[in-house]
């Protein structure tokens, strides 16, 4: 009896929620006709029980499927970097090549002692960051392997524009050995390779607190950085004010150096970005004009269809020819 009334009242609730007033009425009428001996007390008990079951099932469902399951704790996730208004990330803006030049200087003088930039050749720097004379002079500072000579020996030659930027370590094992077991990642594609891109790297470089907050667990040989996933990062803070003397006499504050090097690393990851955006602008303009034209042509061609008037002219009854 209870079960039947439960069923009925839940159905009534469900149908009332659906807003189908007629179904509610029908359920009410069928219940009154089905069992005529429902006392008010029983009806109340049934309503309370049905409500309990409904609310309980919703609570159980939410308990099971509702909350988001996080694989990592917030500390393991790392602090999410705030969004900065990078000008070079706007749709129709190029990189600021003066900033790229400063950023390359920061990379060369600071980052390059541990981090490689192995996918960038000197020739890519020509015409974007350096003049070809500067790039040639820079390339010649390093030695590269030659092709095997007649005796099969590999000699050294000075670098040329086609060579790639030299790595600080011969291989990953050497890099790990020199850095307390931590591998400094290659920076060629780092902006693409990290969630948050420019914002993350800028926040990481500038986000080292003076000392770790109370209660934070910092492992041996690690430094605390809230933006790094896990908060323990092997790289110490490197960018201090006045570390680099900019040739264009920009004040070398920590955030200025971080901003410049981040923009440079974004260029290293996406050297085609300027051309891509320029082509994108051309494509957008042409396609929007073509779209507008196609809309106009459609309306022109359909104008007579849309504006015609169809009139039924009934035959006059008197002089029908049939």
């Amino acid at each position, binding site marked *: 009896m209870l079960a039947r009334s439960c069923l009925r009242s839940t159905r009534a609730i469900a149908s009332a929620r659906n807003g189908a007033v007629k179904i509610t009425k029908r359920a009410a009428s069928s219940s009154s006709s089905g069992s005529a001996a429902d006392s008010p007390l029983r009806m109340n008990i049934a309503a309370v029980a049905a409500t309990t079951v409904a609310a309980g099932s919703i609570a159980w469902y939410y308990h099971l499927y509702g909350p988001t399951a996080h694989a990592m704790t917030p500390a393991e996730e790392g602090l999410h970097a705030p969004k900065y208004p990078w000008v070079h990330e706007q749709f129709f803006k190029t990189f600021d090549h003066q900033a790229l030049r400063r950023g390359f200087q920061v990379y060369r003088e600071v980052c390059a002692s541990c981090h490689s930039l192995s996918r960038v050749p000197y020739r890519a720097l020509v015409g974007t960051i350096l003049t*070809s*004379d500067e790039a040639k002079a820079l390339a010649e500072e390093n030695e590269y392997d030659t092709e095997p000579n007649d005796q099969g020996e590999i000699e050294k030659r000075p670098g040329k524009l086609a060579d790639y930027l030299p790595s600080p370590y011969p291989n990953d094992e050497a890099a790990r050995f020199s850095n307390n077991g931590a591998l400094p990642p290659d920076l060629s594609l780092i902006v693409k390779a990290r969630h948050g891109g420019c914002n993350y790297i800028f926040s990481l470089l500038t986000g080292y607190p003076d000392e770790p907050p109370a209660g934070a667990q910092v492992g041996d040989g690690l430094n605390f950085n809230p933006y790094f996933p896990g908060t323990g990062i092997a790289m110490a803070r490197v960018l201090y004010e006045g570390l680099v003397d900019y040739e264009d006499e920009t004040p070398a504050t920590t955030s200025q150096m971080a901003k410049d090097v981040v923009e440079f690393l974004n260029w290293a990851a996406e050297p085609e970005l300027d051309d891509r955006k320029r082509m994108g602008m*051309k494509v957008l303009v042409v396609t929007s004009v073509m779209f507008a034209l196609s809309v106009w042509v459609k309306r022109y061609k359909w104008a007579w269809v849309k504006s015609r008037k169809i009139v039924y002219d009934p035959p006059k009854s008197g002089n029908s020819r049939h």
Partner: protein
Amino acid sequence: MASIASSSLYNALFRRNYTMLGAVFAGAFTFEMWYGSTMDKIWDKNNRGRQWKDIRSKYVEDAEEEE
């Protein structure tokens, strides 16, 4: 007037297929030249001072030697 202009245009260009094809190709070529240079001008104006060609003069030493 318009009919005279359009009929002369028709007789000159679109009457024979090869002239029309030539007109289309030549028109596409000239439009592309014009459009590309115009958009590049707009682009350079929008990015004045940011591109390498704007700051190159500060760093290049021998103008005739540079490419």
